[in-house]
C-alpha cells in the first residue's frame, strides 16, 4: 500500500507543468477565444508534446512513454490547472493510445503535438474542439471511428467558455476508419475520458482556489484584508476540503483503471462526482469571494470557471454517475 504519485508520473507532471507555466500564460488561454489567434494554444501544445506527455499511454515501442493511468491523472491535473484550451483528455487519454493500437500513421503527428484529437464518445452531438482538432473520434453504436475533421459536417457553436471551439456534428460523414470495435476497448476509452476530465476539474479547482486566496489576501474592504473575515475564511476552507478530498479519489480511480480492478468504473464515477462538485463549489466560492472583480472578463478567474461549467456536465454529469453507482449498489 502506497498512496502517492510515483516518481515517473511526478516527473512527467512536473515537466509538463513547467512547460505550461512558461509557454501557456493566460494570454495564450485568451488567444483560444473567438477573435484570438488559435495558433497560440496550438504552439503551446507542441511544447507540451515535447515532454512526451501526449504519448503517456502509448507503448515505448510505438514512440510513447509506456506509462499508465497513474501517470495520466497528475498530468491532466496540471493541464487543468493551466487551463490551456486544447482537447488534452481526448488526445492523450483516448486518441494517442487507440491510434497506437490501430497502428495508425497519424500517431506520430499526434505525439509531436501537431495534430490534436477531438472525441465524442457519448450520445451528444456536441464536439468540443470540433472547430480545431485535426482528427475526430466518434462512437457509432459499439464502434469507435476516426475521421479527418474535414470529412465531417461540423457547425460551430457559441459557448459560455469561448475557447472550447465547440461544433455540432451533422449526420453527413465521409471517410473515416474503425479505431476500436471491441466492447472492452471502447468502454475503457470512455472511462479514461471520464477519469481525465475529473483530473482536469481538480486542477481547475486548485487554480481558482489559488487565485482567490491570492486575491483575498491583498484586497481590503472595511479597512481589513477580505481574507481576514471569517465568512471568507470558512468559505475557502470548505473549498479546500472539497478539492483535497476529490484529488485522492481521482488518483485512486486512476490506479483502479491501471490495475484493472473490478470496480474501476464505479470508482471513476465516484471520482467524477467529487471532482465535478468540488470544481463547481470552488468556482462559485471564488466568484463570490472576488466580489464584482470575479464578475468581469478582464480578470482571469472567468477563464477557469467557465471551463468548469463546461466540463462538469460532460463525460457523464454527476447525476448520471450517481445513477450508475446506485445501480451497482442495488439501491
Amino acid at each position, binding site marked *: 500500500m502506497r498512496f502517492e504519485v510515483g516518481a515517473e508520473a511526478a516527473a512527467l507532471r512536473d515537466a509538463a507543468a513547467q512547460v505550461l507555466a512558461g509557454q501557456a500564460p493566460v494570454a495564450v488561454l485568451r488567444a483560444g477565444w473567438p477573435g484570438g489567434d488559435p495558433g497560440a494554444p496550438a504552439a503551446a501544445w507542441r511544447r507540451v508534446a515535447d515532454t512526451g506527455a501526449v504519448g503517456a499511454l502509448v507503448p515505448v515501442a510505438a514512440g510513447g512513454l509506456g506509462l499508465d493511468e497513474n501517470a495520466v491523472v497528475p498530468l491532466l491535473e496540471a493541464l487543468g490547472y493551466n487551463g490551456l484550451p486544447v482537447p488534452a483528455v481526448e488526445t492523450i487519454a483516448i486518441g494517442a493510445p487507440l491510434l497506437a493500437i490501430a497502428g495508425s500513421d497519424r500517431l506520430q503527428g499526434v505525439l509531436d503535438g501537431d495534430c490534436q484529437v477531438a472525441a465524442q464518445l457519448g450520445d451528444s452531438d456536441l464536439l468540443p474542439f470540433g472547430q480545431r482538432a485535426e482528427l475526430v473520434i466518434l462512437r457509432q453504436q459499439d464502434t469507435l471511428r476516426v475521421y479527418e475533421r474535414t470529412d465531417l459536417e461540423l457547425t460551430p457553436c457559441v459557448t459560455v467558455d469561448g475557447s472550447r471551439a465547440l461544433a455540432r456534428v451533422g449526420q453527413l460523414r465521409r471517410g473515416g476508419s474503425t479505431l476500436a470495435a471491441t466492447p472492452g476497448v471502447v468502454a475503457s476509452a470512455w472511462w479514461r475520458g471520464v477519469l481525465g476530465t475529473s483530473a482536469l476539474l481538480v486542477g481547475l479547482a486548485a487554480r481558482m482556489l489559488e487565485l482567490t486566496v491570492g486575491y483575498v489576501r491583498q484586497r481590503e474592504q472595511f479597512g481589513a484584508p477580505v481574507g481576514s473575515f471569517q465568512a471568507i475564511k470558512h468559505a475557502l476552507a470548505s473549498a479546500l476540503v472539497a478539492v483535497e478530498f476529490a484529488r485522492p479519489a481521482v488518483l485512486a480511480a486512476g490506479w483502479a483503471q491501471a490495475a484493472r480492478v473490478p470496480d474501476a468504473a464505479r470508482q471513476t464515477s465516484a471520482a467524477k462526482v467529487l471532482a465535478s462538485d468540488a470544481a463547481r463549489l470552488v468556482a462559485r466560492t471564488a466568484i463570490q469571494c472576488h466580489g464584482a472583480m470575479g464578475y*468581469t472578463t478582464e480578470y482571469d478567474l472567468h477563464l477557469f470557471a467557465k471551463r468548469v461549467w463546461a466540463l462538469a456536465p460532460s463525460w457523464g454529469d454527476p447525476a448520471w454517475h450517481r445513477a450508475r453507482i446506485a445501480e451497482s449498489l442495488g439501491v
Partner: protein
Amino acid sequence: MDLTWQPSEQSFRTEAREWLAAHVPGPMPSGDTREGFAAHLEWERALFAARWSAVSWPKRFGGRDATLWEWLIFEEEYYRAGAPQRVTQNGIFLLAPTLFEFGTPQQQERLLPRMAAAEDLWCQGWSEPGAGSDLAAVRSRAVRDEAAGGWLLSGQKTWTTRGAFCTHLFGLFRTDPDSARHHGLTYFLLPLDAPGVTVRGFERLDGDEGFAEVFFDRVFVPDQDVVGDVDQGWRVAMATTGSERGLTLRSPGRFMASAQRLVELARQRPSDQLRDRVVQSWIEAQAYQQFTLQQVTGIVDGKPSGPESSLNKIFWSELDVRLQETAMDLLGEHGELDSPWSRGFQFALAGPIYAGTNEVQRNVVAERLLGLPRV
C-alpha cells in the same frame, strides 16, 4: 388575511397583460451590449408612450399613480410576458426614490419626466477601485468652487452597470476633505458628456460590456445638481441602496416567471434526480411572493422596511442561483451553449455580490435583526 385582489387591481392586471401581449417584442440582444442597448431604448420609449415605464410615479411625471400592489401586479405581468430587461432601472428604481424623498420640486420636475421617457439614462457611481461592497470607502472628491456656484469633482468610480451607454450618473463624492468613512459625503448628479468625464466600458462574466469605469477630472457640477444637503450624502444614498436591496429591484414576479420556465424546461427534459430541485425552486419563488405580500402590507400601513430588506436580498439572490443551477443541470452537456438559460445562470451569480454582498447582508441581519454584537 385577505389574499384576493380588488376589482380595480384585477382590471389593472388585465390592462397590463393585454398591452404586454400585444407589444412585447421578440428576442433581442442583451441590453448590456451596445447594439442591444439601442433596441432596449426603443422598448423603453414604447413603455413610456403607454405610461408603463414607471407605473408607481405620479401622473405628472409620466406614471400612473399606481399603488404598491398595482406595481407588484405589473411586475408579475411584465415577467410573465417575457418582456425585456429594464435598461432604465438604475434611474427609475434607484435614483427616483431618492429624488422623491430628498430632491427639490425643481429637481423632480426637471429630471423625472426625462427619466421616465428614457431621454436621460442614469447609471450609478457607487463603488470605487479597491472598495466594492464598502460603499463608505469613497475617495473621489468634490472641491468647492464658490465663484461658479458649484463643485469640481475628481476621482474614479467603477462597476458602473451600463455606464458605457448611459447619459447621466448619480453618485457620492467626498466634499469634506477631513472626513472619513460615511461622513462628509455629498450626493451629486451629472451628465456623462460633461467636460472632464471619461467612460471606459469593460466586460462582465457573460461577455457583455455591461460595466464601466468612469474617471472624473475637475468636472464642474452646479449646486442645483446636489441632492439633499452637502455632507449628508450618505443618508441620502442609503435611501436608494435600501430600495435596491429590497423590494423594488427584485419583485416576486420575476422569480415566479423564472420558476414557471424552469418547470417547463423540466417537462421537456424530465429528470428523476432533479425533480425535487425543480419543485424546490417553485416553492421558494412562491415563498418569496408571500413574504413580499406580507412586507408590502406593512409598508402600506406605514411600517418602514429597514434592515428587513436584507432578508429579501439574501433570499431572492440565492433562490435565483439555485434555480438557474437547476436549469443548467437539466440542460446537461447542452448547458455550455450560449442561451437565455446559460446567460441567466451567469447573471444570477452576480446577485449575491452586487447591491451589498450577501456576506454584508448577513452581517446586517445578524446585527440589526437578531441583535448580535458588532465586535
